[in-house]
């Protein structure tokens, strides 16, 4: 397609240049050269009809080739768009996570795409075309990564203030690594024995955090924001706003508005010691 396009642009450019070349002898104003009609009909009708017919057939071929994967997907992932983050659910396994989509390499995965609020669009440029998430509808698509790696994805349908920071990562693991990840996700995190971590957990469950976030195995069961059960293993904070590091996490807890203005998480009032404990606790949730 790009080659044909380049050829068309080149052809027209050459014709423009032919048109503006210096003339040695002037032609009569009224004479219409016989080739001119041929150029118009050949270039304007015959050439596009031929090229477009071929392109349309190729389009239909690719559409049918891409509409279903070679093998039936064994794994289904539900992705739910929120302003401005991604809820990721593995319904069969009962696993809930956010902003990272873990998949096994080399096999197709079915995605059920919905939205909790406005329209979004699921797009991982390196892996697949995009599909919109539309209020009141369920769209499905499939995804396959052939090489292990972390693939960046981003919301492609304008969804309001923080459309720019609605990023996610597809983490494609070899089959064994994926199985290990899955079994870990299915367990609630180990209850902390370290006193600092215990203090962090205490800070979490006694604060406003629980109104919006869930951590399994604790009393925190809010549903508004991302599930933080295995937060420590996530790639990013704030749906790709910043990398998941202790420093960024601290900044996010104290004032996420300065990092991602307009997101619904309010600034959290904690003293420095509590903050350190909270950070260590959350980062320990692998």
């Amino acid at each position, binding site marked *: *397609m790009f080659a*044909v*396009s380049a050829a*068309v642009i080149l052809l*027209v*450019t050459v014709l*423009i240049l032919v*048109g*503006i070349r210096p*003339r040695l002898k002037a*032609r009569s*104003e*009224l004479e*219409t*050269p016989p*080739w*001119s*009609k041929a*150029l*118009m*009909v050949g*270039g*304007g009708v015959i050439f596009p*009809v031929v090229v*477009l017919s071929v*392109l*349309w057939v190729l*389009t*239909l071929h*690719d*559409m049918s080739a891409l*509409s279903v994967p070679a093998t039936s997907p064994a794994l289904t992932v539900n992705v739910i768009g929120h*302003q401005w983050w991604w809820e990721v659910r593995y319904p069969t396994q009962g696993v809930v996570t956010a902003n990272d989509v873990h998949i096994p390499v080399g096999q197709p995965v079915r995605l059920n795409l919905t939205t909790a*609020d*406005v*329209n979004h*669009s699921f*797009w991982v*440029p390196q892996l697949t*075309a*995009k*599909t919109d998430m*539309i*209020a*009141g*509808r369920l*769209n499905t698509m499939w995804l396959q990564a052939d090489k292990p790696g972390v693939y960046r994805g*981003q*919301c*492609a*349908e*304008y*969804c*309001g*203030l923080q*459309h*720019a*920071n609605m990023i996610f990562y597809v983490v494609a693991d070899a089959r064994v690594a994926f199985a290990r990840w899955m079994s870990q996700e299915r367990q609630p995190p180990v209850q902390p024995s370290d006193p600092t971590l215990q203090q962090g957990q205490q800070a979490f469950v006694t604060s406003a955090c629980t109104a919006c976030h869930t951590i399994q195995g604790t009393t925190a069961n809010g549903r508004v924001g991302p599930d933080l059960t295995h937060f420590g293993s996530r790639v990013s904070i704030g749906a790709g706003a910043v990398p998941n590091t202790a420093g960024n996490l601290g900044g996010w807890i104290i004032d996420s508005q300065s990092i991602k*203005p*307009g997101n619904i998480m309010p600034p959290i009032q904690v003293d420095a010691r509590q903050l350190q404990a909270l950070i260590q606790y959350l980062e320990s949730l692998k």
Partner: protein
Amino acid sequence: MALTVDERLEELWEEEPGLGSVLSTVDHKSIGKHYIYTAFAFFLAGGVEALLMRTQLARPDLHLIGPEAFNELFSMHGITMIFFFVTPMLFGFGNYFVPLLIGARDMAFPRLNAFGYWIFLFAGLFMYSSFLIGRAPNDGWFNYVTLSNHQFTPALNIDYYTLGLVFLGISTTVGSINFIVTILKLRAPGMSLNRMPLFVWAILATSFSVVFALPSLTMANVMLELDRRAGFNFFNVAKGGDAILWQHLFWIFGHPDVYIIFLPAVGIVSSIVPVFSRRKIIGYLWLALATMTTAIIGFGVWVHHMFATGLPTLSMAFFSAASMLITIPSAIQIFAWLATIIAGKPVFKTPFLFVLGFLFVFVIGGVTGVMFAAVPFDQQITDSYFVVAHFHYVLFGGAVFPIFAAIYYWVPKMWGHLLHEGLGKLSFWLIFVGFNLTFFPMHILGLLGMPRRIYTYHAGLGWDGYNLAASIGSSVLALGILVVLVNFLLYGLRRGAPAGPDPWGGDSLEWATSSPPPAYNFVEIPKVQGTEPLWDQPELRDIGFRARDVEMTLAEGHDTMGTTVVDAEPESVLTMPEATYTPIVTAFGISVVFVGFLTLLLPIIVLGGVIAIGGMMAWLRPKELPE
């Protein structure tokens, strides 16, 4: 004391100069200039919005402009350029030149014409007043639900959008109806449909498209406003409404609108190519038919904006084919122009340079357009910067280059002074280079995965250099536009050499009268015998100022000639209205009504209604007929 014919016409047609005339004029030429001035002001506003966005995006992770302002800027940029610049600009040229090109003395409905302009101006001010309270539309020019629903955007931003566009739609609709009637009924005797200038064909096709496409947008906006303000649920999914419905209604208007923008620009190109190639256009009939075909097929391709929404494969296959089909009339036009240029002996004046620039840029936009018809490619690349690149090649390349060509081509006729050729060429090269530097890298950004409508991006994604190039390009482009403005203000308005009636050796009737033309356009209504009347009929060359056939001067009253639709046989003498304040008063009343709807204050609505109805009553009051 006997007056000569032109003195008599002068007395009948001339409007009192001054502010009063600015507000009360019904002369299509004054209204055309009003449109062009106003639309250019909106162009500058939309351009400043674009420059602010490009500044914010010049480097990764910049925080010059917050997300709220950025989203308002990109929304208003699109709304401004599409609704308040391109179409009104082309309607301005249409207003000024359609009557001249068809040998008429005014538009068919001069007061409606004035009314349309005032509505456009007031709707523009209404839309821009949103910035004053910091609530400019912020859901894009496409205003998708459910983000634009009351639940997710409760503030007035969206109400400005819906009400503003319904408001503006009045102007576009009456303007189009006026064009259709003018073109079908006021053509000079002998100018049968198959002799109409191609620009007139284009305005006719566009006007029909507006009449059929715009109701869909107006309807959608009324429905959304009812949802937002009156508890309806057309788009409220929770109550059984549908979120895709908006997209269909919007694009049933939105895609034909691309051609509404593009066709008049193409008409400009078809006017300029033969004049500067110094020969008749090749394939006149093909070009006229291609114009109409584009307008018609344009209604069958809207779904290609929605390939990623999860539609059935069969429907996508159909719209893919339709979207490819529409390439053909455009290809015919491109090759007809190329054939004309190659067969002619081109003269490289600024208008022609912009036309050549158009050809190159538009073909790039055209081939990337075909790519979107290939569904799997579209699903990958839609809503990425590739789309931003594509439609700027089509709209800036396809419409704005021709608009600049038209400025250089027609300003001498409108103001009587030639523009400076050196500055003209400088502006062309700045615009051409700036444009490509701004928008070509966006193709690559899209392929690299950069989505549209994001106010910032992280470093390290390989996007930085292309964004910086685009931002630098936008400044070069802006500089080029500034040169055009300076050229116009300095040379077009006063210092330029006198243009004379026909500076370019043109083929169509506007060059047969003085520059600027007198209020009555032509002393004598011409009798046309071909598609290039001034080249074929030397006797028409001074018809603007010399009368040969007294019967054709229609100097008995404030009159123009009505002719039959197809063959333009003389049919009637139409008496035209005089300057009046009724259109501006009526338009003002309607503006007050819209302010009332925005603020939901009943007294304001009633007040506006009273003013508007009063204005209309004065407007429609029958004139006493002479004994």
